[in-house]
């Protein structure tokens, strides 16, 4: 998709909302806004209308650094066959189990 001419659109911001204290912020979508304060207000209006939200993060979309589809192989494939990295791979000896209960 072609880059739109920036002059007829406000900057784009990504919105992350938090449902309750301690929960991770989840990506909710994006908003256009001229600056940070308006981005926060727009995000509140657009994304917290119907669900419980206690906190919002907004960040200019261009600040997000993301891995690319080409990275999938080198980044993520090696982890798929290294089963020893999972805690479940290890059997805990019975005596140790007793001590931890």
């Amino acid at each position, binding site marked *: 998709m072609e880059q739109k001419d920036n002059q007829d659109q*406000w900057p784009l911001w990504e919105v992350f909302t938090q449902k309750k204290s301690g929960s991770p912020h989840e990506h909710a979508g994006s*908003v*256009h*806004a*001229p600056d940070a*304060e*308006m981005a926060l*207000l*727009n995000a509140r*209006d*657009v994304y917290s*209308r119907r669900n419980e939200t206690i906190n919002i993060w907004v960040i200019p979309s261009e600040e997000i650094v993301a891995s690319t589809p080409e990275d999938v192989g080198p980044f993520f494939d090696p982890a798929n066959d290294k089963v020893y990295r999972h805690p479940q791979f290890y059997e805990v000896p019975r005596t140790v189990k007793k001590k931890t209960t």
Partner: protein
Amino acid sequence: MNSSQALFEYLQRLADDRLVLGHRISEWCGHGPILEEDIALSNIALDLIGHASSLLEYAGHVEGKNRDADRLAYWRGVREYRNLKMVELPNGDFGFTMARIYLFSTYSRLLYEQLVHSTDGTLRGLSEKALKEVRYHLRHSRNWMLRLGDGTDESHRRIQQSIDDLWMYTGEFFESDEVNDMLSATGIVPDMRDLHKHWEDEVSDTLQQATLSHPDNDQHMATGGRNGIHTEHLGYLLGEMQSLTRMYPEAKW
């Protein structure tokens, strides 16, 4: 007039301000300059209509003639509506709409901050809920005042014009008559004079930050809304707002 009648009068004033302003703002739905503002304006409109609904419901209860919120909203005519003239004016451009929301919300927030101490429990409860929403309306509209005022030449010119045009309607915010006197004597409503000073301070501060000039306070101020004397605009507004009910009086949602 006894105190129940005074309270009924007063509740209509509060409710009608919010119902008429809410209706005006709702006219932006689908026509906002940008998606996010369309949603923001619709949210503000819904909040205001919600406040109006609660206030009218309570008003009907105080009147004691079995009129509920719908009955009061859809079956009173222009001369029975008690809203400020400012809120019935047509929306104008985006800046005019925002300037109006700003001036009204500054007044509304100050008023609710007093009403949460009202000796009337129901009014207190309604005000606590409304105050949170009005704080948000104020934040949103004030942001726009600053950005439009301290913006481009065109936005500055337009918002200055809007403030100049709206100013003659701001006097009505602080009018006080025997209804106010009767209710403030028993602590149900606050004294409007204190509110006026705070409102003036806040608005002056915002105008200054927005690089806008303060209109002349020594000018003719519109009046009459509290007594059912309205501009030519309210008739058309109610004609549209009440059209469905009047066409199908027995209709049920």
